[in-house]
């Protein structure tokens, strides 16, 4: 029996080959103005460095380009089409005014090396956003230079290293809970630390007793996501901070889940020493199919001297400028000043919200996650009954009895018109279904989602094969990932 699919329908989407398959000599989508200086003899100017041939670069017309990418776009799911409940990714609405202001001429075309005198607008944007993020995090200083969350983590750990070094003892280890994002241990390794795993307790929180045992003067810091990847707030956060601080360690917070906290509680107030934010999660800059992001790092006063350089300062004449004279700085983590275009978008989002809007946003995000939890309890196994903040993690324990796993349920959800939740993460929940609705979902959309998930749970009971073979409504069916990895084809070539 096929169940009704109230949200999704099939619509026409067209086949489209690779752009190279449309190319033929003589077609063009470009036109340069006439050259107003003398032509040059390239062979004479460049000698053996002259390039003669551009290989298989395409030759196509403008209308073909428009159709090509428009057709490709119709094969994507997107927030603009519906709920995108990827846990820990915070797929919220991306306001269009953000895009409009990022394209205003002087903002879009500002050169990073133009004189400070004619960069006051950009510097003001950096300063305003910095002050706001400092207030939101409850910390004392910030750098906007890191290009993404993981880059922010690296920056944070290098700051930690520089701090301990200045205290006379560079430490060796970083503690990371077993529920953490994969970026945390990968970053610790890149920053030259060894990683020590920290077990979660029965409530899905940091096991404070084990932390006490594992904490010693070799530990530089604990990297903690709070709320953690189960969507659970670390209720013993003050004890955690105390244990670290007593032995001279620092508390680093991964701010991936800051959408649960903005305007309700500030990490600086509960003992965090430094943290990164993801402007592309909490502050609505678009994910764009996987970036660009932006990962500012906020720190306590004592860590300020180690921030990457340059930093924006107010000069004696009242204008803004860059300060490069930072002898204790960890150096640069990126050329120029970071993903400035994302600062513009995040600031526009904050301005549209104000303090009341940001608080309401956080409340709605938590309300939505709890509503979904309530709706799906009973249909899916809830491994941790601990209160939920902005996301909820179920497991496929009930469905696994019928041979249906989290990825199968996710694929079936596509047929109902939703993007899947995050599958198989966090690692501490076998067969996890990690659901983060964000504040951007209406009650109606979530009711449809809950209906869809319950309907799939019923399908698993009645005819599991329906779920195992899903999706049915997509352009392509399940793709052979094993073959892709075994014999990688990573580019088009004319002979294949």
């Amino acid at each position, binding site marked *: 029996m096929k169940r009704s699919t109230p949200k999704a329908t099939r619509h026409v989407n067209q086949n489209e080959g690779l752009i190279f398959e449309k190319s033929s000599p003589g077609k063009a989508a470009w036109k340069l103005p006439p050259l107003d200086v003398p032509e040059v003899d390239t062979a004479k100017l460049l000698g053996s460095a002259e390039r003669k041939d551009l290989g298989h670069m395409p030759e196509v017309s403008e209308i073909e380009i428009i159709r090509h990418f428009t057709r490709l776009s119709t094969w994507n799911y997107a927030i603009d089409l519906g709920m995108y409940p990827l846990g820990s990714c915070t797929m919220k609405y991306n306001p269009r005014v953000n895009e409009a202001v990022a394209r205003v001429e002087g903002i879009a075309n500002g050169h990073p090396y133009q004189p400070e005198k004619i960069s006051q607008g950009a510097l003001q944007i950096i300063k305003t956003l910095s002050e706001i993020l400092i207030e939101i995090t409850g910390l004392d200083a910030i750098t906007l230079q890191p290009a993404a969350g993981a880059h922010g983590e690296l920056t944070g750990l290098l700051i930690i290293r520089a701090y301990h070094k200045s205290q006379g003892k560079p430490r060796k280890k970083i503690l990371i809970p077993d529920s953490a994002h994969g970026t945390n241990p990968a970053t610790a390794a890149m920053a030259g630390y060894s990683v020590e795993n920290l077990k979660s307790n029965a409530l899905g929180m940091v096991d404070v007793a084990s932390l006490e045992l594992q904490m010693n003067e070799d530990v530089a810091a604990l990297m903690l996501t709070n709320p953690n990847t189960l969507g659970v707030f670390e209720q013993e956060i003050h004890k955690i901070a105390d244990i670290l601080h007593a032995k001279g360690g620092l508390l680093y917070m991964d701010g991936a889940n800051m959408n649960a906290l903005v305007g309700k509680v500030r990490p600086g107030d509960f003992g965090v020493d430094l943290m990164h934010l993801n402007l592309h999660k909490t502050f609505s800059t*678009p994910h764009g199919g996987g970036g660009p992001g932006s990962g500012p790092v906020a720190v306590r006063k004592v860590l300020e001297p180690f921030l990457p350089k340059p930093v924006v300062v107010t000069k004696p004449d009242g204008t803004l400028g860059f300060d490069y004279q930072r002898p204790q700085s960890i150096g640069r983590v990126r050329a120029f000043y970071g993903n400035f275009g994302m600062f513009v978008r995040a600031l526009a989002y904050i301005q549209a919200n104000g303090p009341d809007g940001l608080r309401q946003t956080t409340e709605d995000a938590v309300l939505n996650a709890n509503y979904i939890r309530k709706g799906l309890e009973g249909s899916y196994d809830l491994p941790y009954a601990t209160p939920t903040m902005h996301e909820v993690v179920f497991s496929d324990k009930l469905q696994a009895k019928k041979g249906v796993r989290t990825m199968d349920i996710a694929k079936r959800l596509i047929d109902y018109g939703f993007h899947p939740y995050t599958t198989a993460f966090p690692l501490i929940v076998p067969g996890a279904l990690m659901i983060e609705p964000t504040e951007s979902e209406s009650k109606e959309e979530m009711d449809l989602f809950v209906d869809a998930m319950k309907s799939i749970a019923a399908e698993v009971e009645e005819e599991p094969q329906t779920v195992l073979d899903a999706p049915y409504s997509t352009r392509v069916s399940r793709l052979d990932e094993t073959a892709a990895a075994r014999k990688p084809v990573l580019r088009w070539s004319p002979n294949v």
Partner: protein
Amino acid sequence: MRYLPKSPADREAMLKAIGVRSVDDLFAPIPGEYRLNRDLKIPRQMAESEIVEWFRQRSRENGDGYTSFLGAGAYFHYRPVVIDALISRGEFLTAYTPYQAEISQGTLQSIFEFQTMICELTGMEVANASMYDGSTAAAEAVMMAVRLSGRRSVAVARTLHPEYREVLTTYATHQNMPLSVINFNDDGRINIEKLQKSITPETACVLVQSPNFFGTIEDVDAIAEIAHKQGAMLVVSIAEAVSLGIVEPPREADIIAMEAQSFGVPLGFGGPYCGVIATREKNVRQMPGRLVGQTVDKQGRRGFVLTLATREQHIRREKATSNICTNQALVALMVNIFMTVYGKVGLKELAKQNLAKTAYAASTFSKHGEILFGGAPRFNEFVVRTSEDPKATNGRLLGHKMVGGLPLAKFYPELGHAALWCCTEMTTRSAIDTAAGLIAESERSMRSAKEEEEEVAR
């Protein structure tokens, strides 16, 4: 709040369904003493019209309407309007990383095309889906060479973008990767003899940029030969992607770390840009970042997936090739569309215009100042030395709504009053003539002042 799709009645109904009295009950897990019982001290909620006006004001304070001769790793090229028209489609703009391949074929196929075109342009066999930018791509490429070679030290050209060098230093410091910096010759190219001497059996790779920070094209083949003879790899950084239209790519390189900003990405005060790493197929398993591969679905239809994920942090955790997760997908799409628009013929013609404008500017400027590094070919940048401090000259140019070349004293003090100028297809002959005229004026007044001084001395 206009972005929130719920009425007060909806919220009430939801609280009731959950079984709590108020939303504050949902925040009970947060210990009371930490909860914020006041408004955040941030600007009040603004109307859309107010937000637009606020940013227009900032734009007016930000060099709007100036003609610029700045390059140095960030280039002003024309951006065809189809780029923004296409990347503004919500299906591209508001999608996540394409983990669910069945409903992400648009993003996946476009990345596959991007990888292909980067390979064609760089002469490499594989390219990844993007890195943060050119500076971090260069640092990651060096770390990749360290893993591949099993050696740890790195020889870096001093003509690599100085900020790229700073980033590499930050990355290398904590990973026990000693860096040696190799100076340049009078022709602006790396000093080959010094390079040869600095390479040891411990050298993992040589890192050069071409065209380099001065706009000079390096003799990559000669550098490759020296590096390879000693078993070291060659990493080439390319900061000005348009050069690939007319300058032979560094085919002898083992890894190319690119900044693709020139391909349709706005200057945007320094970011977001688009780094890329390209290499030989045999090195792919040590490559950082995401890769899209071609495969088939159950019915045998062509489709695309993220592949070789076992290199990545979400699988390998502390043993991953890099911690990179989010990259620059939407910016890579801009680059992809730009490459498609110009294509095989357009990119070459575009690069030729850059070459012609720069050749004209260099010859015009040479009448008034000294053009350095004339002994080697250059692309679209050149270094001019004047008797006046270029900061002073630039101050006067600003009065004519012009931004002069980048003064180099901060990075290369030994070059004295030198500045790095850039011309692209956007630079007009009249702008070049005006700037040259202003330099001529200052040089004349400097000369007469000097003559007066000498007169007095006599």
